[in-house]
């Protein structure tokens, strides 16, 4: 783990790269004093030699520090290239000069330790700050976010596309098969969304309890959990309650749908879905900790969501078509998790979370991506070729250039969590846009069925 404290010779070496140095000491009145000087640095000997500033009494019976600091101004923006280093030591007078022998050093260079990682490593200091403030005031003082932002962050709401895509696709396929009911369709979307929100929040709860989120110092917008527990924005207990409420709401909607549809298939899908969702991070199964997270996500956000939505509309009748349509969606959604696990792998390994990127090296992981994404598109083509899926479903192949962008971005950014963020964003788009295009394909099927029933849309 990189630390802000440095070996003294390394601190001096860094200090020697600055054009001037700020000499600091505490004066006779107890105030610190700073003067810019030019010190001659000798990292090998662990010393810095300088002429004492003129007109100021510089005592030699106390510690001095020498600081180098750098920014690059960016007009209209602010500045970047932040770095600084401080070396402490005691100085002795040698004729006209003072010679400081370094005893300790610390510094930060955002090129070496990105600001976001530096911030993440400092979360403990934030906790100490709020604890001290709370103790001083005798009442809890906690960091805050506005309710809207907090809900968005704690539930990871933008990830709901993983649910919306398969559910809407299932509904569209059912509609193409002549079964559509608006009320149950809306209830399905809401119920399925509650399952995912429950999963998202429960995932944070169990990852926090098992130390996986705490150990991750390179979270990004798409990985590393919501971190609301680590940041002190929401308590673990409140998150656990929230997860339970989402699951109970999902179960209640599931019961309503069961009452309305009376389907054994729906009951089975609902029960399996809730179990897979909960077992994703919850003990004893902890599927994601055993390298089974991708399979759980593929099954949950592929066939289960899509078939669940389909059977709600058909009243329990199953068909080959939604099963086949769920395969590319399942593979692409699993790849979202798979790629998002790459930047988390060090923290995950530390917490004993054996995800696939923890278990395998970069070559195998990237090959895994390539094979899986190719399989997703192959499933689509085969599905259309066998006449199971409609020809317009091939529109989803338009996302191949996005998948290629992900492939190209993985290797150069494999060890750079923040560089990987753009790749993760594109990878999410692959799933989202492929899903939208499949939904559009079924919209074409529906419209064509209404206006030109004779037009063949399936290869027979």
């Amino acid at each position, binding site marked *: 783990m990189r630390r802000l404290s440095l070996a003294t010779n390394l601190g001096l070496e860094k200090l020697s790269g600055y054009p*001037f140095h*700020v000499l*600091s*000491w*505490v004066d006779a009145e*107890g*105030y*610190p*004093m*700073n*003067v*810019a*000087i030019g010190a001659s640095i000798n990292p090998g000997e662990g010393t810095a030699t300088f*002429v004492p*500033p*003129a*007109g*100021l009494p510089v005592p030699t019976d*106390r*510690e*001095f*520090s020498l*600081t180098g*600091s*750098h*920014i*690059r*101004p960016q007009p*209209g*923006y*602010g*500045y970047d290239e*932040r770095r*600084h280093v*401080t070396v*402490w030591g005691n100085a002795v007078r040698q004729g006209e000069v003072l010679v400081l022998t370094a005893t300790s050093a610390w510094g930060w260079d955002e090129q070496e330790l990105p600001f*976001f990682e530096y*911030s993440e490593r*400092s*979360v403990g*200091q*934030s906790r*100490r*700050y*709020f604890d*001290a*403030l709370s103790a001083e005031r005798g009442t809890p*003082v906690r*960091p*805050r*976010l506005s309710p809207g*932002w907090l809900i*968005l*962050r704690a539930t990871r709401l933008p990830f709901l596309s993983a649910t919306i895509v398969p559910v809407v696709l299932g509904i569209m396929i059912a509609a193409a098969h002549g079964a559509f009911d608006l009320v149950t369709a809306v209830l399905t979307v809401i119920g399925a969304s509650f399952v995912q929100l429950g999963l998202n929040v429960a995932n944070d709860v169990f990852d926090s309890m098992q130390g996986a989120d705490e150990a991750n110092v390179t979270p990004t*917008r798409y990985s590393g959990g919501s971190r609301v527990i680590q*940041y002190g*924005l929401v308590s673990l207990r409140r998150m656990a309650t929230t997860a339970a409420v989402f699951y109970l709401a999902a179960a209640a909607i599931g019961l309503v749908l069961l009452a309305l549809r009376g389907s054994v298939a729906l009951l089975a899908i609902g029960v399996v879905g809730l179990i897979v969702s909960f077992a994703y991070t919850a003990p004893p199964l902890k599927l994601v900790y055993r390298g089974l997270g991708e399979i759980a996500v593929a099954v949950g956000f592929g066939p289960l969501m899509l078939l669940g939505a389909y059977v709600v509309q058909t009243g329990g009748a199953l068909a080959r078509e939604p099963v086949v349509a769920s395969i590319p969606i399942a593979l692409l959604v699993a790849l979202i998790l798979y790629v998002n696990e790459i930047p988390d792998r060090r923290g995950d390994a530390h917490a004993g979370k054996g995800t696939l990127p923890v278990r395998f090296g970069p070559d195998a992981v990237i090959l895994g991506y390539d094979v899986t994404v190719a399989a997703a598109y192959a499933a689509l083509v085969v599905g259309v070729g066998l006449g199971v899926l409609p020809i317009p479903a091939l529109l989803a192949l338009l996302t191949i250039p996005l998948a290629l962008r992900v492939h190209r971005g993985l290797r150069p950014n494999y060890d750079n969590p923040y560089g990987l963020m753009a790749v993760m964003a594109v990878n999410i788009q692959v799933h989202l846009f492929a899903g939208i295009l499949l939904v559009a394909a079924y919209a074409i099927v529906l419209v064509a069925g209404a206006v030109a029933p004779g037009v063949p849309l399936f290869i027979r």
Partner: protein
Amino acid sequence: MGALPKPVEELLEAALVAELTVVREDGRPVTYPLIPLYDGERIYMTSSALFSRKLEHLRRNSRVAVSITDPVAVAGRTDRATIQGDARVIEDDPHGGWERLLPIWERKEPAIVAFLKQRVALPLFFERALIEVTPRRAFFWPNGLTGAAPVVSSAEGVQ
């Protein structure tokens, strides 16, 4: 006319970064680069809860020095200054109390407003305490020549 000599005020108003030096419990000086925000009387700096160790030092010892030393950070001005003073940590409302300084901050770092709009991405960074420095004495080095004795002036008028 502010509390400090005009050349020192000009440096404070131009500086993108200053060095704040505080005194640790064991007497060691610790220096932090921070944006100085000057309102014509006092110097303000802010500290995120994430990087709040300096606030712990300040609660124990309020004596500080604020220096402007880097010509690059003051648009090429070569003068240098150090202001000694007493600091007060203002943390009544770490969530939003510091935002009253946003207009001065934005003049130096326009991107801060856009960052603040993304508060959800980095919530702890925007939980901040204010460091209010009441100047007591200023040291000024024309043309930055610290090999010569500084011009020293007091700022006793500030209460």
